[in-house]
């Protein structure tokens, strides 16, 4: 009887019910779309910001002070501090390995070229190596600085090869020596073929890049590395992150250690490589964090505004449907239905409409969020699966809440008064 009443009520006026459900669906769609975009936009932007280059620099614990201007070392004798090349891939075995999007070891030297000292770096460009879990992984300059503009091509160094004499030349050096891709230049008495010209606008323009093992052999420093650039996805620094880890309680320390702050990632790299120091490059890390925090906060507040209005919309629609049906309530009461039964009937109906609208709306909302992600970031957004059910639940609650007050009012009125058409 109860169910027949509810289903009859829905079947009797399909047009009006459809309008109510549609209104709820619209509210739910707004909420889902906003939340879906909000939850993932931080990660998306974080990845975009990685095109700024490395935000961590790992160097050997130095006994002497480096004296470098524009990549040329002015120290009288080269010191013997280094990171062993064999240890480099340990960076990817730290707790936050998945947040490390790329790293690039390099060895520094200087070659005399055109009467001037030019810094030469031996690097991995895009080296494949077998990670701790046995899977093939990639590291090197291209994983950190993938956005560099190259005239010509990148050097392909997937495999080790110390007899491959190719070089990539910075734009400023190339202009000074009028080099083009395919030309030959001589470094350390060895002819190199120019594979590509790098233009970044930064220090890189004044350098020459060759394969790591080639430079190791030429300057006789086998198995040694001077620095590792690391690009990591980090959580923006907050008050907590600025505390000194040495003075944290064990509980705080655990929380700090298990949060991808730039400082905790640096700390873990130092644990993995005891002979090295890892330092955030604040120019990148600091500003990156600030931009990210702004975007996250902005999207959160906009979502809150959208959620509040979606809730209000659903609430007002449901209140309207009850208001319209006051005479129906009066008739039920007049024919002897108890207040509890009437309330249960209407609540069931309203909840059903809320659920239908919520389902439809969250489906449409997910489609829209996906579309926004696709058209802005060219990849699907990662939206937590729980979002759909949460929105449906919220739609039901908002619907019942909206109907509650007018229902309560209608139930308290004398049926005779309502049926006469008065207030």
């Amino acid at each position, binding site marked *: 009887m109860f169910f027949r009443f509810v289903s009859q009520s829905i079947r009797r006026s399909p047009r009006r019910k459809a309008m109510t459900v549609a209104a709820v669906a619209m509210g739910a769609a707004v909420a889902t779309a906003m939340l879906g975009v909000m939850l993932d936009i931080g990660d998306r932007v974080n990845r975009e910001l990685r095109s700024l280059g490395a935000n961590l620099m790992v160097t050997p614990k130095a006994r002497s002070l480096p004296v470098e201007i524009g990549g040329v070392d002015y120290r009288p004798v080269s010191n013997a501090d280094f990171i062993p090349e064999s240890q480099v891939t340990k960076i990817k075995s730290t707790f936050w390995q998945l947040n490390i999007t790329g790293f690039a070891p390099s060895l520094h030297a200087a070659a005399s070229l055109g009467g001037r000292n030019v810094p030469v770096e031996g690097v991995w460009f895009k080296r494949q190596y077998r990670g701790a879990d046995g899977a093939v992984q990639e590291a090197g300059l291209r994983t950190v600085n993938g956005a560099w503009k190259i005239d010509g091509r990148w050097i392909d160094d997937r495999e080790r090869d110390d007899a491959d004499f190719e070089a990539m030349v910075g734009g400023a050096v190339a202009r000074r020596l009028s080099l083009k891709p395919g030309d030959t230049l001589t470094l350390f008495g060895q002819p190199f073929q120019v594979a590509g010209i790098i233009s970044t606008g930064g220090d890189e323009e004044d350098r020459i890049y060759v394969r790591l093992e080639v430079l190791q052999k030429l300057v006789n420093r086998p198995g040694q590395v001077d620095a590792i650039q690391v690009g990591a996805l980090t959580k923006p620094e907050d008050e907590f992150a600025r505390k000194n880890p040495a003075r944290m309680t064990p509980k705080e320390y655990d929380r700090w250690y298990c949060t991808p702050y730039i400082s905790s990632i640096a700390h873990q790299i130092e644990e993995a490589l005891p002979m090295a120091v890892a330092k955030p490059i604040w120019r990148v890390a600091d500003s990156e964090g600030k931009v990210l925090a702004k975007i996250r906060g*902005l999207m959160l507040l*906009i979502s809150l505004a959208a959620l509040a209005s979606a809730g209000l919309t659903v609430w007002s629609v449901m209140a309207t449907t009850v208001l319209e049906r006051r005479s129906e309530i009066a008739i039920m009461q007049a024919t002897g239905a108890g207040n509890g039964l009437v309330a249960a009937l209407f609540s069931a109906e309203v909840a059903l409409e809320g659920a239908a609208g919520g389902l439809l709306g969250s489906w449409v909302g997910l489609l829209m969020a996906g579309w926004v992600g696709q058209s802005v970031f060219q990849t699907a957004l990662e939206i937590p699966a729980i979002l759909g059910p949460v929105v449906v639940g919220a739609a039901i609650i908002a619907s019942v809440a909206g109907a509650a007050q007018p229902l309560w009012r209608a139930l308290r009125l004398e049926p005779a008064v309502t049926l006469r058409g008065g207030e």
Partner: protein
Amino acid sequence: MFWSFVLRAVEFRKRRLVLAFAALAVAATLATALFSVYSDIERKMRAQFREYGANMVIAPEGGSQTVPLEAVAAAERQGAAAAPFIYTVGRVDSEPVVVAGTDFRRAAPLTDYWRVDGARAASPGECLLGTAVAAHFRLHIGDRLALDGAPSVVRGIVSSGGAEDQQIIVPLETAAQLAGLHDAVSLVQVRADGAKLPAVAAALSNALPGVDVRVLHAVAETEANVVLKLRSTLFLLTALILAITTLCVTNNFSALVLERSQEIGVLKAIGAAERKIAALFLSESLILGLVSTAAGYGFGLLVAWWIGRQIFPEASAAGVGVNFGVFLPVTGVTLVVATAATLAAAARIWRIKPAVILRGE
């Protein structure tokens, strides 16, 4: 007579109209707030990116090792922030150290990312130390060091994670003396407005022959990319939400007419012309639309202002992100939608047969 009819209708159906009003006002609030935020977001995000420091450097070209000092003035004439830097090697206790000289006042906006203990600037006879230098010579703030024989008081310790960590940073004149340079510097860092970057770079190249004007692609492009993507995300979301709320409003106005079929029947039965009845509904809708849009507009500006205050507190001096210009579009859209929805529903007025309706079918 006509207006008293409209007013009575409003008065009689107060509760119903309050709900319709609320729904509409919410839509207008959301539209106003989102449009306000959207129209201002580019300026604000670009201001955020200023913290990345320079997006352009002026470097020596060809055989030259220096850039003329007038490059700074040339960049400033283009409305950019610019700071000169001199790099040279000095000696502390006969040990070589890189000495960087800069104009601290000009460098300040370009070095926001420096983490400094103590002062951010030094006057002649003072210096800042990079963390590595301070640790190497075991120096603290207030200590004195002899830089090439000239005593210098440590005013601050700089940590940047970059080259500055291994430098002694002194005023430009001190470094110029040390390096033996006159009206020439090693490098000029420039921060130009991101949107005008290519134009400024081209103008500087023209104005300064013999130097290399380089745009830092990573900074410039990441900035453009992120700002653009955020802007289009906001735009798409605003458009979608506007479309959805508009649909909702349409729904609401149709309902306002449909509910009153009986009344329409009565009016027709006593001889009212259809056009007159439609005009009645239309004016009711327009009044409702206008009032709720005005309320929603005011509230939306408040929301936009609040969001601006919360997220970009430092920008509040330069306007808090309230865009008064969104009133016309928001009102226009709402009123057009209200009219269209009412008219669409009003088409029924002509089809309603008083006898059928009044019999209760």
